[in-house]
């Protein structure tokens, strides 16, 4: 039975067409994966359905009736709810309080807490959710918080649930839990739309796949059981891509970057506990782990942004100390965690951003401290061409570029300085497949030119595909070291969450 029908939906923003005559349907008790790259229009389509933005043209039918929601609250009242990528929970409130917030039972003045709690407990047991109703949300893991968000929409009697990139923040194990929950919801008669660009998960959970590309509907009836991930990705990108193929290092050389006894203390707690590792020339060392397990602190220590409690850092046998400028000068490149807040000045031009951090080099700056504008603009034009940065000109403000192209500016800036070692954090976060593929290739080329690369990423697939050796970080400690392929995704996922896993005999940890 058809529950939602969107006909010929178009959305025109000044200068761009976000959606071009897209049709979309959702049947009862169906899980549809809305697949597409960033900017393909999938979020726009769902925002139109949810009443967050108005379509330029097109019609929407819900349960056979024509509807047009002006605000999300109108959609919610009809039973269409959305679980956003960024959770909207009050950390200091309990699970029950968060779930009932906004639709509290009882008379207008007095809150019937007892009744509310009982309703929530009923919901939890009905859908077999594994959540303590009286726990404070701040104490919950990300996966549990997501379950609270889903409970919230169930409490509002949602029939249609839209999930925006629901697996972006989850560990592999949590993804499995989420999918189990979604299947149960489907069995209970709910209809579900998942907005995603992840192919493996699409294949695993979806009954039907709808592919969007550049605002066009490519295919609205793909059977995920009948296509390979490769075919799906080609539908999504419009050409052949290959992200998962490993390209192992050809020549691993001498030790380049050596870190000994790195301990970082923050607010009286040890966030990184006596970590030591070495990276060789021509090697990518990956650090896998859930965010917040000491990655940020390691990055800051290795780039001179923070003084650790203890650390001996040597680069080609020479000790590096001092401030971030000393680390840069010594030849340690840095692709920061968050490009907009740490890596770029969005108000300034592409050109000015392409020399950031290297602006005092004799190539760009005369002895008197004048900027050599002509050389800088030539250099920026060259980088723009070499690294395929899509920008109107090198004088455009960085804020006008897409996320992928912003990231390319950082990659071009750091990689073209031929650093001896490089700390790369989340290089493809929020970047579309095309740019991801490109950045991965650049990273491998840099490695093959002899650089020692430390790759820190929350994307386990990325770490597994690129690394020549993988460390797993849990609560500031390295809990495992393995070669790629040695551990399965599930095994690594367990290690990342502090699970007990026998890596090798005699190396069991708790």
């Amino acid at each position, binding site marked *: 039975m058809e529950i939602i029908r969107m006909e010929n939906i178009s959305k025109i923003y000044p200068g761009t067409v976000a959606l071009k005559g897209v049709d979309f349907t959702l049947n009862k008790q169906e899980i549809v994966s809305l697949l597409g790259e960033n900017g393909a229009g999938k979020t726009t389509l769902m925002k139109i359905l949810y009443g967050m933005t108005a379509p330029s043209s097109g019609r929407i039918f819900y349960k056979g009736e024509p509807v047009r929601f002006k605000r999300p609250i109108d959609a919610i009242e009809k039973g269409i709810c959305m679980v956003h990528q960024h959770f909207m929970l009050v950390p200091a409130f309990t699970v029950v309080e968060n779930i009932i917030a906004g639709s509290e039972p009882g008379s207008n003045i007095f809150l019937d807490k007892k009744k509310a709690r009982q309703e929530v407990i009923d919901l939890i047991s009905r859908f077999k959710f594994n959540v303590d109703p009286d726990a404070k949300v701040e104490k919950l893991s990300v996966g549990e918080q997501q379950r609270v968000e889903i409970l919230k929409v169930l409490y509002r009697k949602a029939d249609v649930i839209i999930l925006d990139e629901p697996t972006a923040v989850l560990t592999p194990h949590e993804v499995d839990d989420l999918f189990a929950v979604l299947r149960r919801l489907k069995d209970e008669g709910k209809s579900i739309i998942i907005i995603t660009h992840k192919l493996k998960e699409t294949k695993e959970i979806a009954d039907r796949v709808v592919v969007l590309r550049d605002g066009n509907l490519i295919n609205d009836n793909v059977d995920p059981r009948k296509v390979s991930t490769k075919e799906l990705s080609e539908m999504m990108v419009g050409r052949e891509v290959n992200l998962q193929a490993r390209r192992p290092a050809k020549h691993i050389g001498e030790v380049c970057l050596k870190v000994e006894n790195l301990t970082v203390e923050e607010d009286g707690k040890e966030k990184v506990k006596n970590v030591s590792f070495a990276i060789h020339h021509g090697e990518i060392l990956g650090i896998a782990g859930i965010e917040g397990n000491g990655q940020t602190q390691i990055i800051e220590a290795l780039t001179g942004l923070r003084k650790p409690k203890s650390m001996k850092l040597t680069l080609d046998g020479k000790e590096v100390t001092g401030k971030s400028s000393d680390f840069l000068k010594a030849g340690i490149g840095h692709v920061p965690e968050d490009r907009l807040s740490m890596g770029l*000045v969005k108000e300034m031009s592409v050109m000015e951003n392409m020399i950031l951090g290297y602006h005092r080099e004799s190539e760009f700056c005369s002895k008197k*401290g004048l*900027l050599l*504008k002509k050389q800088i603009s030539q250099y920026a034009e060259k980088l723009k061409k070499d690294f395929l940065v899509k920008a109107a000109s090198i*004088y455009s403000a960085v804020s006008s570029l897409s996320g992928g192209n912003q990231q390319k500016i950082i990659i071009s800036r750091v990689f073209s300085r031929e650093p001896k070692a490089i700390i790369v954090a989340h290089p493809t976060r929020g970047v579309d497949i095309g740019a991801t593929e490109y950045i991965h290739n650049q990273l491998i080329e840099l490695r093959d030119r002899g650089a020692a690369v430390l790759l820190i990423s929350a994307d386990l697939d990325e770490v597994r595909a690129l690394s020549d050796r993988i460390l797993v970080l849990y609560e500031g400690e390295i809990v495992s070291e393995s070669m790629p392929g040695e551990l399965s995704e599930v095994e690594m996922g367990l290690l990342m969450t502090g699970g007990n896993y026998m890596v090798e005999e005699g190396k069991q940890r708790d």
Partner: protein
Amino acid sequence: MIKNIDNARKIKMGSSFMNSAIALVISLILGMVIIGISGYSPIESYIAIFGVSLGTLKGFALSLSQATPLIFTGLAFAFAYKVKMINTGAEGQLYAGAMAAALVGAYITNLPSGVHALLGFAAAFLAGGLAALFVALCKVYLNANEIIVSLMLNEIIIFFTSYLANGPLKPPGSGVGQTKMIEDTAKLTKLIPQTQLTTAIFIAIITACVLAYLLDKTVFGYEIKVTGHNLKASNVAGINVSKISLITFALSGAIAGMGGAAMVLGVNYRFVEGFSSGYGFAGISIAALAAYNPIGVIFSAFLIGILKSGTITLNRTTSIPVELVDIIQVLVLIFVAAPALIKSIMSRAKKVRSKSSREEHMEVKTSDI
């Protein structure tokens, strides 16, 4: 390629100047309304203000001389704002600079005239710079709020210089708080006789040009801009943020100090207690009106200079209360400070216009508008 840069820049600066221009027009119109409501003729008043200020040589000179200290204080605020620091201390720095220039002018003798005046400016530069450096040190090393420290320091400097002018430095027989007259060699050359317009205006314009050059062409300016826009990114880029902030803020104070020297060496020829009619704070609105662009400051200061000199003419020639002109100044500030307000007015105007033009188009099918 050069055209490209110019275009990109023009578009960017164009929009902020456009905002200022619209703010100006709106406040002038509102000013007319207010003058009208108060029972005076708006046209007559505007003719009195602008006709004299722009139409006569003396009026023009008066506008420029009124603008001179404002250029310095406007530059001071605009420059500190480039690292997103708020220099509310320009008033105090102005007094410190004035006192330093007055001392150099009065107590150092036997210098060639040009050199003496320049030495006065240098002393003012140092005095204003040191006052601001103190504030910046508190901010960078003690994490103090520069706005509050600056305001406090203003009081200290203004009262201390008053004490000096009323006590140890007061020349015998003087009735008011002031210091000894400076030497003739320290006095700035008048550009037009019997006016207060002196070579100080050139020093002000040169200072603005130097700042513009510094910001646009040097590594120091580049680091200032990066620091101002994104503190975290400048740390990652290895920029010494503390150093940049300290130097920029100290320079900002030094520029305000030079404004004090311009008043002492060009207008009053001595330090006079309470000589500033709020030049330091006027700098804030002037910088905002210029969209924090050093060259723009010259023009916005000139504009305020016109209004100020207009006030003086109004006072002499008509019965219109001068406070009405002050209202216009304040309106300018309000509208400049609220770019969102201007934008909403503009977009509403656009909507109305496009709607009416569409209707016209439909009805008449000939649109000249």
